[in-house]
């Protein structure tokens, strides 16, 4: 047993640090640090910088323009990027669609789509959930009926994150209405500008319109946009859920959030002394730091297993459970740390550029919105209730 990284891994970390120090624009990292709202341009700028370096697609093979990183390298990049307050890379094309195409798509699909993801020409979004199909995803109702060389798609998707920036959507659709739930589902690629596709933004509890409803009304989709076989889409969706989930624990995010809370607690005062010295606040903070120290090692254990080629089992569900609790607790601590300053709603600051002055502490405007926004962590990507059931069934059967 050896907790240490190899020299090659340490060198890689150093390389990542240097890249971030030189290539991450300050205005972008300030936006991320202050939990401001990123626009399409912000994401695309960062994607282009990463793509120039060859680091936009960490898990893709080199021959497709990926970085070809190991799970540990991905983890190191993620850690460093978070600590440097880099924007996240939007995952839908890079870590969700592309692996499915690489595993199940045609050569033509791979060669057509992957370069367009890297170049930014295509922004993908995800069409999985429906109003009646959340945790019970397999009960989805969006229909695709074959009509010559096309499928005619009708139905509705929801919770489509950043769909307002996307020109493409990958969808799970029902192609055989008579089959049992998980069967009869297909995986379909759809242009958002096809006639009959409409998008309605949903304003969330934090005031942001981050997610959308997408409506399909007699949308004609060429049959070559089917991925893999008809009625096998559930297999591909599950593949996607069990792979490419190295970052499910969010250790990098939590490390950065912990550092932010510590800094704020040292800057704001309570009874004339830094809040960090208040034993009640210090106890909350230390407790989550201790939990995070352990979860970081749980994460490394699973990474090491992945590196050795072992498939992730219920451990990734445990990581999601603990990881979301820790991330949510840290957003709660940031809000608490800011005290009365967390109350004012400051959308102008959150949407604004460098020159907007915050009321109160600079971290105040983002704190409560981030707390509310991050409630999603335990809801999406398989709710924590679903994860608990997965863990329990892995040991109890049934």
């Amino acid at each position, binding site marked *: 047993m050896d907790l240490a990284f190899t020299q090659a891994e340490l060198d890689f970390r150093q390389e990542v640090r240097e890249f971030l120090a030189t290539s991450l624009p300050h205005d972008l990292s300030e936006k991320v640090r202050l939990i401001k709202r990123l626009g399409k341009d912000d994401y695309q700028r960062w994607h282009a910088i990463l793509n120039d370096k060859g680091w936009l697609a960490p898990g893709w093979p080199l021959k497709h323009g990926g970085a070809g990183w190991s799970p540990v390298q991905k983890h190191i990049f993620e850690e460093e990027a978070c600590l440097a307050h880099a924007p996240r890379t939007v995952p839908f094309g890079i870590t969700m669609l592309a692996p499915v195409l690489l595993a199940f798509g045609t050569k033509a699909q791979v060669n057509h789509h992957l370069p367009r993801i890297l170049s930014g020409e295509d922004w993908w979004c995800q069409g999985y959930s429906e109003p009646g199909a*959340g*945790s019970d995803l397999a009960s989805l109702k969006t229909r695709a009926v074959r009509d010559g060389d096309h499928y005619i798609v009708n139905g509705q998707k929801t919770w489509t994150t950043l769909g307002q920036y996307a020109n493409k959507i990958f969808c799970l659709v029902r192609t055989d209405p008579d089959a049992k739930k998980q069967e009869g589902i297909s995986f379909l690629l759809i242009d958002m500008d096809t006639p009959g596709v409409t998008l309605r933004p949903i304003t*969330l509890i934090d005031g942001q319109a981050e997610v959308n409803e997408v409506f399909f009304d007699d949308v004609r989709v060429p049959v070559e946009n089917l991925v893999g076989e008809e009625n096998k889409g559930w297999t591909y969706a599950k593949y996607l859920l069990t792979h490419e989930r190295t970052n499910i624990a969010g250790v990098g995010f939590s490390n950065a959030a912990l550092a932010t809370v510590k800094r704020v607690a040292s800057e704001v005062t*309570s009874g004339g002394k830094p809040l960090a010295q208040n034993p*009640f606040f210090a106890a909350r903070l230390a407790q989550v730091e201790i939990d995070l120290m352990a979860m970081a090692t749980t994460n490394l254990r699973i990474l090491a297993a992945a590196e050795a080629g072992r498939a992730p089992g219920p451990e990734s569900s445990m990581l999601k459970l603990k990881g979301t609790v820790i991330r949510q607790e840290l957003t709660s601590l940031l809000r608490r740390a800011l*005290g*009365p300053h967390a109350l004012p709603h400051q959308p102008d600051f959150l949407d604004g550029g460098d020159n907007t002055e915050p009321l109160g502490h600079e971290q105040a405007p983002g704190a*409560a919105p981030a707390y509310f926004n991050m*409630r999603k962590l335990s809801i*999406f990507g398989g709710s924590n209730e679903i994860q608990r059931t997965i863990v329990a069934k892995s040991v109890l059967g049934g």
Partner: protein
Amino acid sequence: MDFTLSDERRMLQDSLSRYLADNLDHERRRKTLDSGAPYDADLFKGLADLGTLAALFPEEAGGFGGTGPDIALVFETLGRAGTLEPFLPAALAAPLLTDHAGLVEQIIAGDSIVTLAHTEPDARYDLADVSLSAKPTLTGTKTNVLYGAQATHLIVSARETGDRLDPEGISLFLIPTDAPGLTITPITNVDGTASAQVAFTDTQADTRIGEPGQGHALLETATAHAILALSAETLGAMEAAKDLTLAYLQERQQFGRPIGTFQALQHRIADMLTEIEQARSAVLNLAGHLDAPRDTRERHVSATKNLVGRVAALVAEEAVQMHGGIGMTQEYELSHHARRLVMADHLFGDVDHHLERFIHLSGG
């Protein structure tokens, strides 16, 4: 021992509830917020006409209430309906305005709003942390002034002697908001309520509330009233969040059955209900001890704010989680209550502040 409501109070509660049911729903609240108005002035006036504000003042001041149970009843009803209107300032100001009959009359009618300008940017939750100077004009900044941009008057805490954090030497002054030297920056809070930041520059302060330098005890009394009001309002919001959640659990189908039939959620609902009963008892405890001697009252103040704050966060988080995505949308009523439940912890001291204070008051 009697936990039932008197006939008068039951009538007040019924008429308030009915009026609110007829005149406020989530769509109308969203419309008010989207309009840029801090609240619905017609609704405020309508509620005032029903005696909502009068219920916060004792008979000798022209009201018909003012006791702990009155305050609890009014604010629980308001909280359940999810109002945005400026009632909290009246709860804060009521114990401070015993010598201002005319002003109280205007407050009761809904024509004047008197609010407390106390929290300073670096003060967090310590009531004695006052730096704004009164030598003799006022200079300094107050923040989180509830409905400060809509108020007609402010009661301002200012330091006449002593240092920051010294309970001695704090005085209170009544200032009209059109006084010279005031700069009022309106704020909308995350939960949709209104407040303001108020900067004072050589502002004249002629009208004292209480004795010079003895403001701390008055601040405690006003805060005790406000914490009762806010806790009761929070209790109402819990009830609203609970009702929405129970309805959703019975209606929402997943895996071929209502999600309320899943035992894991049933058990969490049971814990949530149990905690809400705890919060109700905590509100009753403070309501029943609002006129008790200072040490007893303040122990209940901190116990209640701590407990209600913990339960509020639990209810908000569990209600949203059990709803799933829909619980996170602004279109759906729960999001309003969830924000109120969570952000109330940031007013008048959060759960940690009051836990520490409870220990201190208990001689620890």
